């Protein structure tokens, strides 16, 4: 017999697959794109949730990684499509339109950025950590705005979506399947990591740093590792998001983006592996349904978020599946 949580996971993943498939049969590409957004936002949220839910690191600067992933896609594709090089000295570095390479670069650079931001930010905790991560993301935001080479404030458009072996990525359903596959992969990895030795130690550090120190381990090293993994996942989501829109702009670096990623996590259920996916799906659903009613739909979103924080701390997952049971 499946637990409530496993049932909810299955229902959620089935819904995310069946909606775009149905839309494909009904020839409603807009719905497919909408679900693809939910899937990509879900991946971004899973990234943040790894640091926030498992490690207790409240980062309000994950737009830094989301945006970096976006610009990796934008810059590499721009150079490939204009037949120019990123640099010519000391060696020539061409752009690329191969998605897999773009993802790898996005993951590696985001991990590196997270290592830098984490190493500095993790000297603080609590409110100071929130503020310093926010500050780093804002720095990148203003840098992106003021750097004219890649569009500055206007952002950077890509005419054709990047290539993935054997697929026509301009076909919405095919690009959706690519994103959905990546979501499954990321979920699997995070699921395994939450149950690994690292996950056990990280969760213990979140609950009680003193205990972990008394057992001979340094919480800071666990936090930094978690932050790097977290940034890498959100960076991958950024690259996908830019590819979905064929457009990247400084907005991806903005604090509103950081806030939205955090909303996915809180709506879904902090610390639950599938939580951010549910949160992102609900967010997109609200944006679509409420956004049709009024331009000021964020007011309603705010009210719902308040309700969740006040009355349903565990988000959707806490509400439906109850408290998390200990992993075996």
């Amino acid at each position, binding site marked *: 017999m499946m637990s409530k949580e496993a049932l909810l996971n299955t229902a959620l993943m089935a819904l995310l697959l069946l909606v775009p498939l149905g839309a494909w049969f009904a020839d409603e590409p807009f719905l497919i794109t909408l679900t693809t957004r939910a899937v990509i936002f879900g991946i971004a949220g899973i990234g943040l949730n790894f640091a926030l839910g498992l490690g207790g690191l409240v980062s309000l600067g994950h737009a830094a990684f989301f945006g970096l992933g976006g610009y990796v896609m934008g810059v590499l594709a721009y150079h490939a499509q204009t037949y120019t090089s990123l640099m010519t000295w000391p060696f020539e570095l061409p752009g690329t339109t191969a998605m897999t390479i773009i993802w790898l670069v996005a993951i590696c650079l985001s991990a590196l950025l997270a290592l830098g931001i984490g190493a500095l930010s993790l000297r603080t905790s609590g409110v100071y950590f929130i503020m310093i991560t926010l500050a780093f993301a804002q720095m990148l935001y203003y840098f992106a705005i003021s750097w004219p080479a890649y569009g500055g404030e206007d952002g950077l458009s890509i005419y054709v979506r990047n290539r993935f072996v054997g697929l026509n990525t301009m076909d919405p359903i095919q690009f959706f399947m690519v994103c959905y596959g990546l979501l499954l992969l990321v979920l699997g990895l995070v699921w*395994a*990591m939450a*149950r*690994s*030795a*690292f*996950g*056990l*130690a990280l*969760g*213990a550090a979140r*609950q*009680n740093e*003193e*205990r*972990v*120190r*008394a*057992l*001979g*381990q*340094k919480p800071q090293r*666990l936090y930094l*590792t978690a932050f790097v993994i977290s940034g890498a996942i959100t960076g991958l989501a950024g690259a996908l998001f830019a590819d979905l829109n064929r457009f990247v702009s400084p907005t991806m670096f903005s604090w509103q983006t950081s806030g939205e990623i955090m909303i996915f996590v809180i709506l879904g259920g902090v610390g639950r592996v599938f939580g951010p996916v549910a949160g992102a799906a609900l967010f997109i659903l609200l944006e679509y349904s409420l956004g049709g009613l009024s331009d000021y739909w964020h007011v309603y979103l705010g009210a719902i978020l308040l309700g969740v924080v006040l009355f349903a701390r565990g988000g959707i997952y806490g509400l439906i599946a109850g408290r998390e049971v*200990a*992993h*075996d």
Partner: protein
Amino acid sequence: MTDPILEIRGLTKSFGALSVSQAIDLDLRPGEIHALIGPNGAGKTTLVKQIAGALQPDSGSVRLAGQDVTRLSTAARARLGMGRTFQISSLAMDYTVLQNTVLGALCHRGDVFRFFRPVMKDAALLEAARRALDEVGLGALEAQRTSELSHGQRRQLEVASALTLEPKAFLMDEPMAGLGVEGSQHMMGFLDSLRDRAPILLVEHDMDAVFSLADRISVLVLGEIIASGSVSDIRSNPLVRSAYLGEDEAA
């Protein structure tokens, strides 16, 4: 005489004008239980913190198994073999009893940076954890969430967690507190047998426990060791009687 496992020399610490540790000398020899007693506010916990590495002394030194650890972090001292239990239970409250103990065994083995194999299916860790739980008498509660344990059971879990480290010396801050009569008896029997594996520096309020368990007793009053010796020495020491025992009886 054998070399002490834990050797504290001239440990001094003050907070402003308040002197909490005054040139404290203390050692822990193989095979013994050395009890540290003293009235409330004597500076016992401050001393334990300095020995464990949570607080830096102003001067003096702490040596563990011959190595100077005075400037080392809590984590480094734990890796060198200091097994600590806390006065106020310090555990991962959302974890099960077994998870908390596996955590100890894992940290002792040292390979926390493994990302994919499920840790709660690691046979070697489970075996070490279950052995420690059985020793303290928590074997039947391994699936219980730690936050649902009684205070006494949390103490037992602290001890089990320290056991998984296979330490060279135990540093126990009131392991008997809140245990109840039966629990206390069981824990005393257990600590009694534990001293052969590694010596115990025992901070304890329960006088019966101290007098029946300890090989040696040191008495801390206002940050100073006023007496140190065997149980009978301490019982008959007039300074101790007036400073501590008398007060205890009056209360």
